């Protein structure tokens, strides 16, 4: 089937097989930040935005993305770098494998909530697994990042 989409701000047209999910298509188009961590729709590593909403690209049928706008971490380098700085300052990173999906979902949360409470943050991010840390560093990083973004406005 023929697929047309806007990937990270650029129009893209390509052929793909009927049972492809969005994740494999994105990796074929050099978006290597998008990873398959679990294959059971659980880990959140494959998170990308489709029309600005965070979804699991391992489960999202590619055909459904036709005509839509898809954003991966490759398309949000400035935002990722900024937030990544807060993560590093809090020592929230260990192996870093889960970071792309995690950062995508943090950026989606910031779009959806003006001033999320701790429980809103934890609820929004509960679908992002990290097997190295205890999430405490991430939570500190998010709160400092939110305060920084709030002060910028």
């Amino acid at each position, binding site marked *: 089937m023929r697929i047309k989409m806007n990937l990270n701000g650029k129009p893209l047209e390509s052929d793909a097989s009927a*049972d492809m*999910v969005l994740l494999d298509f994105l990796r074929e188009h050099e978006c290597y930040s998008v990873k398959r961590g679990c294959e059971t729709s659980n880990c959140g590593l494959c998170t990308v935005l489709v029309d600005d*909403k965070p979804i*699991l690209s391992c*489960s999202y*049928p590619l*055909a459904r993305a036709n005509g839509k706008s898809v954003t991966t971490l490759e398309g949000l380098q400035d935002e990722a770098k900024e937030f990544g700085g807060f993560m590093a300052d809090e020592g929230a990173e260990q192996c870093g494998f889960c970071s792309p999906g995690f950062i995508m979902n943090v950026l989606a949360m910031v779009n959806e909530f003006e001033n999320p409470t701790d429980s809103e943050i934890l609820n929004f991010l*509960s*679908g992002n697994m990290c097997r190295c840390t205890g999430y405490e560093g991430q939570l500190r990083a998010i709160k400092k990042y939110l305060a920084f973004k709030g002060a910028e406005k």
Partner: protein
Amino acid sequence: MISIEEYKIVESLEEAYKLNQSRSNQIIGGMCWVKMQNKSVHTAIDMSNLGLDTIEEFDDCFKIGAMTTLRALETNERIMEFFGNGISESLCHIVGVQFRNCATVGASVFMRFPFSDVVTALLALDAQVQLHQKGIVSLEDFAKMPFDRDILTHIILKKQNIKMKYLSLRNSYTDFPVLAVAVSQTENGVQACVGARPQRAELVKDQGNILANGITKETAKEFAEFAANALSFGTNPRGSAEYRKHLCKVLVCRGLLALNGDDENEN
């Protein structure tokens, strides 16, 4: 993993229904569970282009399109204003926001999963389902019907004077529930719906009028006991039948007291 030969975004319900009559074809909801089947599908039927992804409000009801995502239902403000946060509470523990932006309400209801939070909450709200061939059927009946090749198009929630509370026990925050309970007070009395037993969710009504004179600590406990004895429970790696039966008594009782605004009163 599933393999698909052809992927068809259908133009009409009739087209979806015709394709769905073949056992080698399959409707794709959110694809979150479907993709994990070890199965080859000839035509995957995608209904995402039929305008079924919205929640419409009418004078007497809400109509939730089958392709509405779990997240859209969870965050719908009108639904929350009308039915309280019970529906939201039943959805917010399901995997994660990204999963709930994919998984659909229609597929969750149609599949009548033995772990379903969604069906448990909707049953307690006296929901109905609209089927392409069979028309409108109460969810209570639908939850007992065998699987067939009809198509669920909408879930209907009547606007009635109803209060509902949802409780579940999970081994971890986003895991399947060990037991899911929704209790509601409707114009016809009090009922409890218990899911994840792990069997299809089922309603227990207050036939013996245990709560006819109001919900108190004693009557709540008595009704919870009645509900636990009226239902069957099973064992799986998340918990034993005996444990679930015990949980049922505790959660139904807590739910009833919470309906009463008695949240502090834990049993």
